[in-house]
């Protein structure tokens, strides 16, 4: 019997593939698919009282969501903040990666490691340290006041959308660096030289050659930043105040002190679908756009 199995295993590529995949498959099933299914089914239930849930099927929670202006506006705000964070991160990370990929000759890895140095501390600690920098008595305000440039602290820095955007941008920068660096480093420098040789200026070469060829990295970076930041609730909870609150904070509340599991589940599902649609649109248009310019 064992012999039969062994010879089957040796010949069968799918068998090998599934046995290599199985740890991940088990983990994904237990930690992702089952909770996701639970969440989906809860979104079709009704919270009758604080402790009681009516398990009959209804789509009323989804209707509730779109009837509550607060939830819809929070969803829009979450997407907007994530868009800004993604855009600012790309704009700051791209030149850094470009420099490392094309101008650093030795120890490229060291540069990358140094760039990720701030990320060796925990996410929470980093969020807290931004509190120290941005607060009313924080580094920025007190130095500006001591220098005599301000008489009162800047209030928009802390407990605001700005604070959330700054903190999230910093928090996710490292994740954008890697895909961008990899895609730029893969570009053969002689392609850039060839474009220059064929009469294009530096800027034109960037638009026609470098940017289109680094597109996989750009799309990767967009997805890797956009998806987690839409759902982030730690940063807005700690630094957002009322102005910087995002949908995820509301979802957390529905599952916590408000105790409306079905509405929370419906909100989470809507957010999931929104993220999926937005990422598809973004990748598609980025691709189309670069095809047009090249």
């Amino acid at each position: 019997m064992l012999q039969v199995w062994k010879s089957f295993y040796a010949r069968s590529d799918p068998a090998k593939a599934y046995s290599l995949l199985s740890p991940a498959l088990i983990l994904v099933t237990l930690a992702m698919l089952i909770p996701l299914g639970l969440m989906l089914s809860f979104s079709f239930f009704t919270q009758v009282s604080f402790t009681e849930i009516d398990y009959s099927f209804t789509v009323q929670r989804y209707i509730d969501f779109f009837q509550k202006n607060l939830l819809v506006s929070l969803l829009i705000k979450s997407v907007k903040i994530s868009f800004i964070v993604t855009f600012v991160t790309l704009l700051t990370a791209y030149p850094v990666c470009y420099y490392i990929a094309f101008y650093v000759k030795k120890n490229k890895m060291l540069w990358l490691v140094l760039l990720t140095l701030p990320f060796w501390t925990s996410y929470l600690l980093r969020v807290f340290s931004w509190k120290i920098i941005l607060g009313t008595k924080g580094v920025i305000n007190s130095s500006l006041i001591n220098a005599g440039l301000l008489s009162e602290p800047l209030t928009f820095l802390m407990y605001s959308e700005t604070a959330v955007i700054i903190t999230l941008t910093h928090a996710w920068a490292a994740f954008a660096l890697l895909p961008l660096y990899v895609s730029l480093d893969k570009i053969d420098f002689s392609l850039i030289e060839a474009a220059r040789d064929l009469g294009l200026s530096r800027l034109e070469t960037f638009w026609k050659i470098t940017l289109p060829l680094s597109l996989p990295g750009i799309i990767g970076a967009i997805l890797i930043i956009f998806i987690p930041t839409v759902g982030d609730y730690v940063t807005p909870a700690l630094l957002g105040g009322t102005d910087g609150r995002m949908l995820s904070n509301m979802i957390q509340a529905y599952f916590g002190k408000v105790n409306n599991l079905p509405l929370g589940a419906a909100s989470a599902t809507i957010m999931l679908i929104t993220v999926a649609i937005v990422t598809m649109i973004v990748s598609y248009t980025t691709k189309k756009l670069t095809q047009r310019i090249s």
Partner: protein
Amino acid sequence: MNDSFIQINGISKHFGNVKAVDDVSFQIKEGEFFSLLGPSGCGKTTLLRLLAGFEYPTSGNLLLDGSDITALPPDKRPTNMVFQNYAIFPHINVEKNVQFGLRKLGLTNDEIAKRVKDVLSLVKLEGYEERYSSQLSGGQRQRVALARALVRQPKVLLLDEPLGALDKKLRDEMQLELRTLQKEIGITFVFVTHDQQEAISMSDRVAVMSEGKIQQMSSPNELYKNPQNIFVSDFIGETNFLKAKTDSKDGEYINVNIEDLGSFKIKNNLNISENASDVICSVRPETMMIDKEKSDWDICLEGKIKQTSYLGEMTKFYVETKEIEKIITVSSQYFDNQSFQNGKCFISINLNDISLLNKK
């Protein structure tokens, strides 16, 4: 024809402490097929990149057709390059690759279409317009790179070892084709290669480089027949070196004392006048004769065959004689194992075939 179409005046290029190109001056004629030949690291590619504008010289200046191009960026130079790895843009098709360099020339759409069509037929790539680089063979990529550079009608075409990645048969074919193409369109070609056979077979003139300097610049025939130093003689083809000392001069000839062989009267191709200076005598393998019997040539040495290698059109022999440790010779005549008893053979040399080289 302009004899000083490209003027390279005292060009040096240093990378840190490395002198990649070391005070080089020469001129390239208009319409010439000019090769830069040398081993890797000799500075030939750096010199080509200086001409293209990818590097700027540490000192010296470059003139093309009378105007100074030393400080011009690559996009402002009337030169185009065929890269070693072809550098075909992978995200656009063949047609767009070829069109790429035409956007900035201010041509009408009709003119662009005509030029693209003409150049693709010139390099025999009609029908490949829609293909992408990944769908082409090495030889086809090479043609795309050539078409993309030629379509701009540059004054000079720079080629950086363009045949290096092709297999031998295709390489031989492309050598012929490139040569024909160059004569047909009349554009000046500057061709970089480490392959001496390639340089010799294609070029009007060859500059042999080593350690950032030009060792010799002449026609392929002159290079082979009259190498000016040991480096060139050794790099171009194969040869045998014999140590020698000069003796008295005798008109066009000079008496030379070859180590272990004796004194001989040889053509004084170096114009040496002083006595007792160290020189090297070079004898090409194909000028010697190998046979079973003694001959009446100027020098005839008895030797023993150490090794043979059969090359098809000829056989190469490594021979040891009493006087000289190792002689390489070739014969187009086929000898089998029975031809030489116990490897015993005679090597014959004519004095006319010995050329003198400076010992340096």
